[in-house]
C-alpha cells in the first residue's frame, strides 16, 4: 500500500550522456495515488514498459528518484521493493503445483508455514483457483496461468502496487473480459495501487480510472477516460484515443475564428495569444462534425466513403490535403460526392505545436 512518486525520472539505455531525444523515457515527474487503478497507454516502443520496469526495479533509472510513500527506493533491488508484476506471457514454475507456485514468494522470504498455508488458501479463493491448488500448474490454460502469476504477487500481504505488462496478450478474447472484470473486482476489494500497461485503448479505458498516455518516451497526458476524450492535451492523445481518432487539421486561428482551406469556422472560445511561429492546428472529434447536404457558407468536403458501424455511420472525407472523419446522420446521402461540414464549435480545440492551447471564454 503506497503512494508512488516519480521525481524527474528518466532512463536512457545508452547512458545519461546520450542526447535526450534518444532517451527511452524522457524526464517525468508525477504521482500515482495509493489505491488508484492506472493504465499506461501508448503504442509499442513509447517507453511504457521501460517505465513499468523502472518502478518494479528491473531497470535502474539513469536519472531521478522513485519514492514509495515519500521514501526513496531508487537504489533498492526488485526483491526489496514490495512490488508484484504480471508479465505479458504467463510465468509459472513448471515443476510445482498451483499451491506451491502461490507459496513460492512467501517461502523465499522465510514466512512460517502456517501463515503461508493461510495466505495461499485465501488467494486461491480470491482468484477462483481453489479446485486447482494441488494440480500441476503446467496443465492449466493461459488465463489460469496468468491468475497464478497475479496470485504470486497478491499473496504477499505487504505488496505496495501490482504492475501489469500487457497481461491479456495471450488470453482468448472471450476470457479477456472475464479476467479484466476480475481485476477490477480485485482492485475494489483489496485497495491496491494497480498499474496496467497496454496498447489497447479499450483495455485501458475500461480498466483504469486514470489513464496515462505515453508517446515517444514522454507522458503526454494523464486523466480520466472522459478527460482524454473531451480534451486531449496533445494531438497524439486525440487521434490515439477514440475510433476513429480526432481530426487534426492545419488552420489559421484568429480570435474566435479558424480559417481552413479558405473557409471560416467559428470556435467556441477565443484564442488571442497564440505562440508566434508555432504550427497551428484545430482538432475536433468525428462525433462533433456532421456531414450535411452542401450548403453555402459551410465548408465543402469530398466524400471518399461512408463506414457503417451499425450504431453510427462515419463519413470519410477529404478537405484539400487533409482527411477528415465526420458523423453521417441517418438518411444522409450525397448526390455528387460532396458534402457540407457542420462543426460543433464548443468541441473544437486549438493546438500549437501539437499541444493544447486553452482559449478564453
Amino acid at each position, binding site marked *: 500500500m503506497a503512494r508512488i512518486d516519480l521525481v524527474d525520472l528518466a532512463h536512457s539505455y545508452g547512458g545519461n550522456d546520450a542526447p535526450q531525444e534518444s532517451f527511452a523515457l524522457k524526464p517525468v515527474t508525477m504521482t500515482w495515488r495509493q489505491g488508484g487503478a492506472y493504465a499506461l497507454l501508448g503504442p509499442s516502443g513509447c517507453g511504457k514498459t521501460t517505465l513499468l520496469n523502472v518502478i518494479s526495479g528491473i531497470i535502474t533509472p539513469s536519472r531521478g528518484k522513485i519514492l514509495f510513500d515519500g521514501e526513496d527506493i531508487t537504489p533498492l533491488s526488485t*526483491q526489496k521493493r514490495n512490488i508484484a508484476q504480471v508479465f505479458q506471457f504467463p510465468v509459472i514454475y513448471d515443476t510445482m503445483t498451483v499451491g506451491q507456485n502461490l507459496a513460492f514468494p512467501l517461502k523465499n522470504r522465510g514466512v512460517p508455514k502456517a501463515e503461508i498455508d493461510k495466505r495461499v488458501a485465501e488467494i486461491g479463493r480470491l482468484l477462483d483457483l481453489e479446485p486447482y491448488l494441488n494440480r500441476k500448474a503446467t496443465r492449466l490454460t493461459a488465463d489460469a496461468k496468468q491468475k497464478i502469476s497475479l496470485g504470486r504477487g497478491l499473496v504477499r500481504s505487504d505488496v505496495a502496487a501490482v504492475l501489469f505488462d500487457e497481461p491479456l496478450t495471450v488470453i482468448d478474447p472471450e476470457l479477456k473480459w472475464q479476467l479484466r472484470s476480475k481485476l477490477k473486482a480485485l482492485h475494489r476489494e483489496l485497495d491496491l495501487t494497480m498499474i496496467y500497461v497496454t496498447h489497447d485503448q479499450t483495455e485501458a479505458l475500461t480498466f483504469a480510472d486514470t489513464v496515462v498516455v505515453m508517446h515517444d518516451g514522454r507522458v503526454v497526458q494523464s486523466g480520466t477516460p472522459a478527460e482524454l476524450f473531451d480534451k486531449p492535451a496533445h494531438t497524439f492523445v486525440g487521434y490515439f484515443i477514440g475510433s476513429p481518432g480526432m481530426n487534426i487539421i492545419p488552420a489559421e486561428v484568429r480570435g474566435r475564428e479558424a480559417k481552413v482551406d479558405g473557409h471560416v469556422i467559428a470556435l467556441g472560445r477565443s484564442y488571442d495569444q497564440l505562440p508566434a511561429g508555432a504550427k497551428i492546428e484545430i482538432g475536433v472529434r468525428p462525433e462533433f462534425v456532421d456531414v450535411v447536404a452542401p450548403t453555402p457558407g459551410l465548408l465543402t468536403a469530398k466524400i471518399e466513403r461512408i463506414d457503417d458501424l451499425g450504431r453510427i455511420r462515419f463519413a470519410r472525407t477529404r478537405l484539400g490535403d487533409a482527411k477528415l472523419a465526420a458523423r453521417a446522420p441517418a438518411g444522409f446521402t450525397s448526390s455528387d460526392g460532396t458534402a457540407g461540414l457542420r462543426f460543433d464549435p464548443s468541441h473544437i480545440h486549438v493546438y500549437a505545436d501539437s499541444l493544447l492551447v486553452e482559449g478564453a471564454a
Partner: protein
Amino acid sequence: MDKTVNQKAWFLVLPVFLVVAFSAVLPLMTVVNYSMQDTFGNNQFFWNGVGWFKELLDPSTDLGGRFLASLGRNLFFSMVILAIEVPLGIVVALSMPRQGWTVAACLVILALPLLIPWNVVGTIWQIFGRPDIGLMGYVLNAAGIDYNYVSNDIDAWVTVIVMDVWHWTSLVALLCYAGLKSIPEAYYQAAQIDGASRWAVFKAIQLPKMNRVLLIAVLLRFMDSFMIYTEPFVVTGGGPGNSTTFVSIELVKIALGQFDLGKAAALSLVYNLIILIVCWIFYTVMTNAGAERKHQEGAA
C-alpha cells in the same frame, strides 16, 4: 478405384537392400554364425551351440570372469564420468556469458575438445601424463605426488577419467547452454520479484527447463562411455594388469589377440544387446516425457 499392381517397384528397393545386406545383415549373421562355433585355425570350425553364451555369463570360467569383470569396470567408469560431467557441464553452462562477443569465444573454446579425434586425445594425455616428459606427470611428481599411470591402478583410472571429462564435458555444457538460452527473460524477472535466491532460481526455473537436454546428454554420454575403446587403449592399453580393460578392449583382445572368434562373437552379441536395451529404455523414457509434455501443451 483399383490400385495399379506393379511388382516392378520391388526392383527400386533392390539397391538399398543389397547395400544394407552387405554392410549390416551379412556381417551380423557371420557373427551369429561364429558365436555358435569354435575354431582352432585353418578355417576349421566345430559346432558349440550356446556353449559360449553359457560360459560368458558364468563368472567361474575364464571367459565369463573376464567379461563380467570388464563389464563391471565399464559400468563403474560410465557412472563416474556421468557423475562428474553432468554437474560440471551444468555449472559451466550456468557461468557462461549470455550476450556479447564473449559468447562466441566461449562456444569456440568449449567446442575445441569435441573436434579432436579420439586417438589424438589419447595420445595427448598419454604424453601429458608421462612422469619423465609429460607436463602434468612431471609437475605432479615434482610437487611430491607419486603419480605414474603405467604402474599404478588408481593413477591409471584417474587419468582415463580426467581425460574423458576433459574431452566430453563440453558436450554436456553446450547442450545445457542451449536449454538455458531458451528460457525467456520474464522468468528471471518474475523470480526476482518473487524474491527467489540464486539456488531457488536454479531449482524452480533453470533445472526444469533443462531436463530434456540433460536427458539427451546423459543418454549420449552413457552410450559413448559404455563403448569407449580408443582413448584408454592409447593411454593405458587396458593396464596396468587388467585394471582399465573395458569391454571393448577385452573384446578386441579375444578376437584379434587370441583369435578366439567364437568367444569374441558371443561377447560382441551380448555387448550389442546390452547397448540396444539401454538405448530402448532411454528412448522410451524420452518419448514418454515428450508425450507428456505435448499432452500438457495440448491442454494449455
